[in-house]
């Protein structure tokens, strides 16, 4: 188990470094950051001035090296645009994105697990098809379209929910639904498959033969085992939601990390982009690592392989 853990950790560190190098290079490939910072219509003199003041006149490798050295010492740099320490901006916005991710995940699980259970109880019935349809629509429907539809209904027509901001818990309802719905099919299918497998196993048959109530068999014995793969899927999907909330945060004007990432790309704010990519990739890698460990813990065959 120790060898397996170290191996996974090594891979995680390599992935983090690769992601960081790639993101640093890609921003240069998309254009001159000095032009982005100086603004549209800036004169050559303005751009040269910005390039000099912000150190963009240094070779890229030097800029990256100096960023990496600082980052390893815990200094993620200073945002060229927001004029504030990158770490403080990120950690100010991270809780909003994490809250949105958690709410979305909760929505997805609360919708998908019951649907999966219902579908597994009566496989291939109309109920199963209906549950599957509800879930599949979530994957087929683009999240921005679903988000705008929610705004149209709940925000404009019925005036039930606030459209933008993060002032109260009500502000998170529509974004969580829009973001979480996308995850529903995967969780639903996994729950359904797990439940079908477990429900046909010997120990469930034994439990039924003992005369246990159907609900007890279903939730206490079957679901508890069937849901294990869902837990690891949820851990990985939580990482995806942190990084993938850009569109939803943009639509609902939520000042989170996804929105910050999008804005930073637009204005070529290199230190901010680098730090966001690093933080998000560390989260993702950490969650994937935890999922691997969990799976290995639950299933010894994985760590042996």
């Amino acid at each position, binding site marked *: 188990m120790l060898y397996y853990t170290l191996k996974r950790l090594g891979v995680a560190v390599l992935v983090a470094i690769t992601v960081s190098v790639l993101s640093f290079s890609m921003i240069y490939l998309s254009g001159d950051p000095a032009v982005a910072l100086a603004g549209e219509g800036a004169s050559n003199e303005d751009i040269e001035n910005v390039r000099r003041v912000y150190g963009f006149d240094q070779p890229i490798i030097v800029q990256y090296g100096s960023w990496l050295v600082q980052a390893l010492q815990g200094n993620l740099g200073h945002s060229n645009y927001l*004029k504030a320490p990158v770490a403080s901006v990120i950690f100010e916005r991270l809780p909003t994105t994490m809250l949105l991710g958690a709410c979305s995940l909760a929505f997805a699980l609360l919708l998908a697990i019951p649907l999966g259970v219902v579908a597994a109880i009566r496989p291939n019935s109309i109920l199963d098809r209906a549950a599957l349809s509800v879930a599949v629509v979530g994957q087929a429907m683009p999240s921005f379209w679903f988000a705008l539809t929610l705004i149209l209904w709940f925000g404009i027509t019925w005036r039930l929910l606030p459209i933008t901001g993060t002032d109260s818990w009500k502000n998170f309802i529509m974004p969580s639904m829009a973001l979480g719905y996308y995850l529903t099919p995967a969780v639903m299918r996994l729950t359904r498959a797990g439940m079908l497998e477990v429900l046909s196993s010997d120990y469930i048959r034994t439990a039924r033969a003992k005369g246990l109530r159907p609900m007890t068999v279903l939730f206490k014995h079957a679901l508890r085992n069937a849901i294990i793969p869902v837990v690891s899927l949820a851990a990985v999907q939580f990482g995806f939601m942190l990084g993938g909330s850009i569109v939803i945060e943009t639509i609902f004007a939520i000042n989170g990390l996804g929105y910050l990432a999008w804005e930073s790309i637009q204005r070529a704010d290199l230190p901010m982009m680098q730090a966001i990519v690093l933080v998000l990739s560390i989260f993702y890698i950490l969650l994937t690592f935890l999922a691997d460990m969990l799976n290995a813990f639950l299933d010894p065959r994985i760590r042996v392989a």
Partner: protein
Amino acid sequence: MRLPKSMFALGVAALSLAITQNAQAGKSDDTLNWASSREVAVVDPYYNNTRMLVIMGQMGWDGLVFRDIESGEFKPLLAKSWKWNGDKAIEFELRDDVKFHDGTDFDADDVVYTLNHVSNKDNGVLTYRNVSWIENAEKLGPHSVRINLKKPFPPAFAYLANAVNMMPSGHYDNVPKKADGNPDYAAAKPVGTGPYKVSDIKAGEYVLMEKNDAYFADSPKGTPQIGKIRFRTIKEMNTAIAELLTGGLDWIWDVPKEQAERMADSPAVTVENAKTFRVSYLAFDVLGQSGQEFFKDKRVRQAFSHAINRESITKNLVGPASVVIPSACHPDQFGCAQDVPTYSYDPEKAKALLKEAGLENGFEFDLYAYREREFTEAVIGDLAKVGIKAKLNFMQYRALRDVVRKGNTPVNHMTWGSYSIPDVSAIVSNFFTHGPDDLTKDDKVKEYLGIADNSIDPAERTENYKKAFIRIAEEAYWVPMFTYAKYYAWSKDLDFSPTPDEIPRFYTTKWK
């Protein structure tokens, strides 16, 4: 981020007709809520050069002079009077009854401090060209100063009115240090003399400004009316429209034409299309640096000018406030000559010119653009009608700018906003004086512009700018396309009028 909007636009259109409840949120708490797509983190007009800070700059700060948007006349603001001392110095008498938002008195030390700080290149002002013409400022007395210019600079007053705001003396002295040890001037707490003072900022989310009750009474900016003005960032236009229709916002702009026209039927909002200082143009690789040498031939460039139906693009795509321009400038700018050779929409004439140039079978070329793809696609459609096939290369501005400057674009479809400066030197002198943006390197044009840019005699300037514009039009170096117009939408509760310089005057706005 632009998202497909047809479904939402249709829904909003239908619902906006049904919404009769007016947007009361802003009026009821005397707070004007406005939004735009850009984030604002730094509230300092020298260290944030976005349009938002041009607007907030005029709300929170004052310059020495004020430009009357109606008459174009420069009026006293923080200065009571002024006089030129030769052609490289201006002396100002300052008001002695103005206070900064922190209660300190405004005087000559503040002007000297501000101008000497911002004109020092090492201090990293973002749009340095706004102040690059200033050599230094000297104190002549407690309320009198002299600004020394590096060279004669005729549009000095346009810059002083639009982009040179006064900060209190010592404003940037005790700012925190950045990670590299240099002072972080953008972190200075915003303090000005303007009609509104900054009372709260949440970086990237909102900026709250409150009425400055101590604002001097006879300011040409008038007396502020609305208690609080709150700016918010809303990136997605559909969301901003939804907030406007439901009362969460009182004012938005940059509304796409299609959505603006549908919203115009709503009883809750006023929609208006207003002109801006931005112009659209096509520029040719006159020197043949890109490897596609068609555009070295004047007849080909003239054929383009005849082939593009600019009236149709203006009318059908841009908006009613947009106009076709004959010259390489905005008609509202000083020196923008209108009586220059023009090219009417005439596809047959375009074909004849192409035939004359030996290109009767048409040709294929690369067209580069970065903004409003639909406008460029209309151009491509018109060119196809005369046998010219354009291959569109659509890029981000910051990537395209380098490509253009390297001379790698056979034709580029660009725009220019002149920083809202009402003087042609802000556009034509940038593109035709052999600088990095000049794709023509025409000595005659450069000579005319050199005279006009360095003279403080308005008649001499006008005459020489006109010569330059005539030469540019005769040679068809550009196809000047149209002025941009943008759609504004605001609550019916608001008494607001758009201005042609794209700087909404919230300090004169009031509730109905």
